[in-house]
């Protein structure tokens, strides 16, 4: 699946997007945050406060307990500040 990062999450990870293949025991958005955080210091820094991070699956906002099975694109970003 494709993972996208925006705003300071993107800056901290150091990537705008990447393809990932998490193991089958990574079932929810929260699991994915934990799995990504273990990939290195940049990820750990980006996700150091997981409660602040918002997520979307295929362009729809989701909660941390949302299942990721079947997702094409998952995005992580800070609370929005548009308008």
């Amino acid at each position, binding site marked *: 699946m494709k993972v*996208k990062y*925006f*705003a*300071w999450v993107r800056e901290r990870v150091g990537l705008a997007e990447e393809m990932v293949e998490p193991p089958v025991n990574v079932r929810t958005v929260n699991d994915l945050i934990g799995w990504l955080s273990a990939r290195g210091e940049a990820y750990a820094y980006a996700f150091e406060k997981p409660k602040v991070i918002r997520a*979307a699956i295929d*362009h*729809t*906002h989701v909660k941390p307990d949302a299942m990721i099975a079947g997702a094409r694109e998952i*995005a992580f*970003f*800070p*609370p*929005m*500040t*548009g*308008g």
Partner: protein
Amino acid sequence: MTTLATIRIQEADFDIAHEIAALTRGRSDVGAVVTFSGICRGSENGAPITALTLEHYPGMAEAEIRRHTDEAMSRWPLTGLTVIHRVGRIQPGENIVLVLAASQHRQAAFAAAEFLMDYLKANAPFWKREESATGTSWIEARGHDDDAAARWTKS
């Protein structure tokens, strides 16, 4: 009657009078157009800024705005809706966002415009980074924007 909202995300500025005319031209059933325009302030939390840079999530931003305009259309008798959100670098005094809500009567237009702005603030995937003499930093979300959006939730 089918009414489709106009949604645009663009770097260029917009012309408010031109956008209002597009909602009223050639029809006589529009009695009210409410305009909200959001403008870049020259300060953030009391400190001067030199510019904002707006980032967005292409694809999701349009989809999220469309969900909200669809909801507004279903809740109020509107004759038209326009949402334009700028991205890129914007300097103090420049336009950031435009919401136009048109209806036969003012109440629906006022309510729909306010609903859309409250929802855009809290849910549309845009992020502002400020530039000042001391560097750049991401603007933090405000809790009262979430509260403003929540008050429209049907119980």
